[in-house]
């Protein structure tokens, strides 16, 4: 088990960079990370690893010019060389008129969720998942602990946290190429400590989805979708890429550029970033050492604000929100702890109030098509919600839906695929008005679902 590198040792190495001559300012970001991963497929472990790494990243200011260098040589000499490289980089660039200076020393807010280690027995977790699913299960559990210590002249910041991630995809064997009856279900969990992780429950969720998605049917009607929570998180996450960054907002590259105060989403949509929330594991300071706090981005469907670091805040004539990424950072600030405020409807309520549609539980391989139009592309997996009152599985807790799949590839009678829907283009920012819950318009990409 790896131990923490103490503040004294970090400070000693950092001082080797901070003492760089001929520099007007030096900033040292130190990261220490280790973690283990156990991956399994067909109920066998096929990858079990542990790794540990340390790294420093040095930003040097010289006559208004900025240079950055990084190294994983955590030694006095490594730090010194990184600082010298950063200074060399600074000498060949033009002065940055927008450089606001390094962040001033201020108290760092306390992060609420620092947990002890995540446990070591990956095989035990795997066994529990396999017992829960009793199926051929690909998946993985990942334990990670990090320490980050940002230092610069006049102030120190440090923080440590533990993240446990678990993901399981339970697949059921089909009856062969001619009868693709197999289903699949994905479930994942995110926890701050081992007490919060229940591998068996994750496996059961995935297995239940797999069972529910067996024998997919084909649909021939254009559909609008209601994303499940996992799918919605993908959509909200992409807004971070195409919408909320201060640099893209200021430069007109964002889908929200020039739309502050405008209605950009349904009034039931509220999105914010909060690294200090109980629901996430964010750093209490950003990578410039600026304390983080909650930023309301979209309130009741109205675009309120983006996120900023020191440089983009100066560029936009505002103040930093504490969202700097590690330098060099050409894309600018980024919200790493996004939340969408819950509404009042349950998933069952939304399904019950939908005449005809598609329940999307997960997106795969999403990508930005047009940032200003906030168009992304991706592939969905989910269930067809048939016309109200005509569902064939309305019993118990099961949704009144049935799984659907896309047409297969020529050459394979079934295409060898158990994907449950054809791809479609997602159009964000123009949700259909609905009284409750999030409805993101899921527009038909290229025709109805077909066999």
């Amino acid at each position, binding site marked *: 088990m790896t131990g923490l590198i103490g503040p004294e040792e970090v400070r000693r190495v950092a001082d080797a960079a901070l003492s760089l001559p001929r520099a007007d300012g030096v900033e040292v970001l130190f990261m220490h990370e280790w*973690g283990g*991963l156990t*991956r399994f*497929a*067909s*109920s*066998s*472990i*096929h*990858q079990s*690893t542990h*790794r540990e*790494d340390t790294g420093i990243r040095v930003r040097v200011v010289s006559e208004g010019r900025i240079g950055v260098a990084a190294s994983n040589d955590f030694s006095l000499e490594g730090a010194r060389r990184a600082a010298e490289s950063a200074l*060399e980089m600074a000498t*060949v660039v033009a002065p940055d008129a927008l450089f606001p200076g390094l962040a001033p020393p201020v108290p760092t807010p306390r992060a609420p969720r620092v947990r002890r280690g995540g446990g070591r027995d990956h095989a035990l977790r795997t066994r529990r998942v396999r017992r829960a699913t009793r199926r*051929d299960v*690909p*998946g*993985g559990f*990942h334990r990670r602990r990090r320490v980050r210590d940002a230092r610069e002249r006049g102030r120190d910041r440090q923080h440590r946290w533990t993240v446990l991630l678990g*993901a*399981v*995809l339970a*697949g059921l064997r089909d009856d062969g*190429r001619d009868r693709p009856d197999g289903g699949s279900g994905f479930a994942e969990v995110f926890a701050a400590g081992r007490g919060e992780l229940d591998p068996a429950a994750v496996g059961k969720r995935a297995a239940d989805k797999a069972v529910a998605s067996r024998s997919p049917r084909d649909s021939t009607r254009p559909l609008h979708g209601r994303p499940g929570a996992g799918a919605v998180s993908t959509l909200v996450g992409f807004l971070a890429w195409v919408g909320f960054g201060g640099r893209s907002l200021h*430069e*007109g*590259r964002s889908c929200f550029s020039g739309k502050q105060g405008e209605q950009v989403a349904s009034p039931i949509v509220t999105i914010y970033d909060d690294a200090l929330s109980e629901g996430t594991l964010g750093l209490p300071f950003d990578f410039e050492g600026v304390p983080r706090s909650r930023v309301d981005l979209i309130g009741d469907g109205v675009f309120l604000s983006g996120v900023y670091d020191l440089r983009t805040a100066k560029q936009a004539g505002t103040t930093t929100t504490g969202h700097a990424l590690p330098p060099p950072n050409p894309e600018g600030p980024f919200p790493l702890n996004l939340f969408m405020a819950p509404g009042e409807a349950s998933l069952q309520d939304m399904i019950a109030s939908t005449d005809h549609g598609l329940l999307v539980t997960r997106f*795969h*391989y*999403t*990508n930005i*098509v*047009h940032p*200003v*139009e906030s*168009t992304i*592309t*991706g*592939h969905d997996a989910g269930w067809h919600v048939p016309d109200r009152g005509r569902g064939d599985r309305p019993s118990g807790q099961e949704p009144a839906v049935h799984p659907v799949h*896309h*047409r*297969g*590839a*020529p*050459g*394979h009678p079934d*295409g*060898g*695929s*158990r*994907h449950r829907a054809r*791809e479609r*283009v*997602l*159009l964000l920012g123009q949700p259909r008005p609905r009284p409750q819950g999030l409805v993101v*318009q899921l*527009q038909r*990409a*290229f025709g109805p679902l077909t066999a």
Partner: protein
Amino acid sequence: MEPVVLAPVEPVTGTWHSPMQVDPFNVPLEEKVAMLMEATRRMQSIDGLAFGEGGIDLFRRRTFLATSEGTSIEQTTVQSGAGIEATALGDGELQRRSFPNSFRGHISAAGWEHIQKLGLIEEAERTATEAVELLSAKECPSEVTTLVLDSGQVELQIHESIGHPVELDRVLGMEEAYAGSSFVRPEDRGSLRYASPLVSITADASLAGGLGSFGWDDEGVPAQRVPILVDGVFENFISSRETASVLGLTSSGAMRADGWAHYPLIRMTNISIEPREGSLADIIGDTDDGVFMSTNTSWSIDDHRVNFQFGCEIAWRIEKGRLTTMYRNPNYTGITTEFWGSCDAVGGREDWTLWGTPNCGKGQPGQVARVGHGASPSRFRNVQLGVRG
């Protein structure tokens, strides 16, 4: 639980270095910056351009592999590349043109001499002009028609719809929980009609200049030239020692880690389409009606690598063998084997380019591989274009 069986490989002792004429790390930083500054200055000289950006990508990695089987290998690879990107903004529209390719340009396992040949400065004004012109261009129509792709987009098409589906760990379900699986099955070797007879695809780790070139992979398996598709029929997977043994085969030598801290995975080497005959101009000249698309800008494909939707930066109408109307926001969609089955022209050696893809993601924790794809401009019939929300 069954014990792992590794396909046999002879222990080897050796060294390998990628070919290089001028060490890019010995070129003065000022010279590199001056090249980019001049290219971006020329882009900014075009009225209406919002941003001109350029980058140089230099990469050197030295690895040493030792195994208890007796292998001892030292390898060094140097890769150099560069690219420019012009962005135009106007009236709620954003358009971008890149040269020589999008996503960091054109990277090769070579030295500074590769970057000097790219022509970043010479092509800067044309690149910026096209970005500005795209703001007022027509939207790519939604229709089923003939599609001609430049070699840069064929590179992406190969990567997503041939390279990934033939990774044997995907086929065996090992990556299904994260990166996805494949529609290709072990019994498809030698029988699956994957593409038209014009399409032959080869994985070649010995190709000079490829980002997927090496002497031995990270299991000590020698670099090989492996036929993937022969005249359109699927023949071989890319594999590791563990996965190859499942099928009773020897490894194709594709096990690679992106750094010291990561577990090697099956990664593409240089997976290329074999050139046929004719230039891009010949293919366009031989097309009565259709659309020509250039330079990838977006991609998505399902987790079995069947359905895909790809976008390009720019397109033109082809009318009677000539490029006419410019289109913006072009994209197309297809089913992997259907699309490759519709290929009726593959360009010759004169327009075949060995591209570098430095951003191939896979694995948990995520790894980013640098792989290569040789590609010629190609033509496909009856393709659905202009997918809109």
